[in-house]
């Protein structure tokens, strides 16, 4: 069995950073990254981007050396992705914030509202309902992060945690401030009760739907693998929306927040819903495009996020 020689150059400066000899032909990029890490301890594997071309795409950890278009002396280019943080850590941090922050406003912790309102509770039952829904939503997200999701990437750039937390925590505080305000105005007396009831039904329906999709996506992927398959409807009726939409998890998420907006009749919640919708649409379109690129037989009836529309 002939061994390979591997040299790793800096993608920008083309300096020779590392030379590995006697590399097995069936070595994976992941293994090469570990070897590179030994000679450069500051660059742990998660922050290494190894590519065949300085400006090309990153190679995957699973790629095998002998299946790559390289000679017996392989030249790779290295780019530092910067400090990395695990997806799980980011999700847990960005979701715990809103949970805690909202409760601080709900219990009217001092220094938020006028002192005479400290530790009082709202007289409107919809405010209590909203707190339960908001808290349930973020607890669900935390539990899904710990037990349901299977991430294809282990890490993301560290700066994302600051960006993401600002978004989630900031909006949570903004919404919570108004909903739990002493001067909060609930949906009007006349049809207000029906409005809140309908909104609650939509919210719960979409929470169950969103959860069903997460479970269906999890089951597509065996534990520890990073395979990608086309998702299809299962026996669960909440997954039948896969017939019309590529990313129904986002569709249901939009539905949940629309429900919450109508329930609380609060403009900041409407803003949050709109901004989230825009971001999810961008993600859904990207995912839809990758599905189309990867699978020839991808169902043509599907739209990225809204059936027939978007």
């Amino acid at each position, binding site marked *: 069995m002939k061994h390979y020689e591997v040299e790793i150059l800096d993608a920008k400066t083309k300096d020779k950073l590392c030379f590995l000899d006697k590399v097995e032909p069936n070595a994976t990029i992941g293994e090469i990254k570990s070897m590179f890490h030994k000679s450069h301890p500051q660059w742990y594997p998660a922050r290494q981007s190894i590519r065949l071309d300085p400006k090309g795409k990153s190679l995957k950890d699973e790629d095998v050396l002998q299946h790559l278009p390289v000679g017996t002396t392989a030249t790779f280019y290295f780019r530092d992705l910067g400090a990395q943080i695990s997806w799980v850590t980011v999700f847990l941090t960005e979701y715990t914030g809103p949970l805690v922050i909202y409760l601080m406003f709900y219990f009217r912790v001092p220094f938020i509202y006028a002192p005479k309102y400290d530790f009082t509770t709202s007289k409107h039952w919809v405010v209590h309902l909203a707190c339960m829904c908001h808290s349930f939503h973020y607890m669900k997200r935390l539990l899904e992060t710990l037990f349901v999701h299977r991430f294809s990437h282990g890490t993301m750039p560290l700066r994302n945690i600051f960006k993401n937390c600002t978004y989630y925590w900031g909006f949570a505080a903004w919404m919570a401030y108004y*909903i739990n*305000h002493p*001067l909060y*105005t609930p949906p009007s007396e006349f049809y207000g009760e029906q409005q809140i009831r309908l909104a609650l039904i939509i919210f719960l329906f979409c929470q169950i739907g969103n959860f069903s999709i997460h479970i269906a996506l999890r089951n597509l992927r065996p534990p520890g693998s990073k395979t990608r398959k086309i998702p299809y409807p299962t026996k669960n009726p909440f997954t039948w929306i896969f017939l019309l939409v590529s990313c129904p998890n986002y569709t249901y998420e939009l539905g949940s927040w629309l429900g919450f907006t109508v329930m609380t*009749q*609060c*403009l900041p919640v409407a803003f949050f819903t709109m901004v989230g919708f825009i971001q999810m649409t961008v993600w859904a379109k990207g995912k839809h495009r990758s599905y189309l690129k990867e699978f020839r037989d991808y169902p043509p009836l599907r739209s990225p996020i809204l059936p027939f529309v978007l």
Partner: protein
Amino acid sequence: MSAAAAGTSKAAHGDVAPKKRRGPGALATAYLVIYNVVMTAGWLVIAVGLVRAYLARGSYHGLYYSIEKPLKFFQTGAMLEVREVMSRVFLTWAVTHSVREVQSEDSVLLFVTAWTVTEIIRYSFYTFSLLNHLPFLIKWARYTFFFVLYPMGVTGELLTIYAALPYVQKTGLYSVTLPNKYNFSFDYHSFLILVMISYIPLFPQLYFHMIRQRKKVLGHIEDYSKVE
């Protein structure tokens, strides 16, 4: 803020040797030339208006009114350069127009003068660039006058916003209070203070960007003269 950012076309950025880039098509060039000529003319009108009014009155007092209409027209017309002009339009309409009491402030004159001179130079620069006949004087002026004009404009803008604050607070202009049906509130007074604070990170960024651009653009000229 007196930013000199977005040109109206890639060629009009003109900061790097335009010869290497493919220019815009003939129709686009015609449009851009006309647009830039009109804008240059517009700001000249404002400049002339200011000078004439000063000569007629003998004082700076009330000069805003002599150029109020063309200022609103030409600044708003520049909406076509969305990126740069947001703050200018904000100053013009949401501060100076909306708060009558600041219209007689000297600070208004300060930023109008700064914008006027900047824009005349800038639009002449773009016009000449598009016609591939850029006099060195214009290029030099564009990348040198900003040293004074930026701080001057920013000072005028900040002082104007600051002057508007007490009136905004007293009248509750553009503000929404609780309780209301949509459970939303907005305090324009606090918003203006936030705008003023935002100048702290944003102004140095723009200023140093222009300084860097200056080194790049005018630096080359010095190299050529050394080679001679």
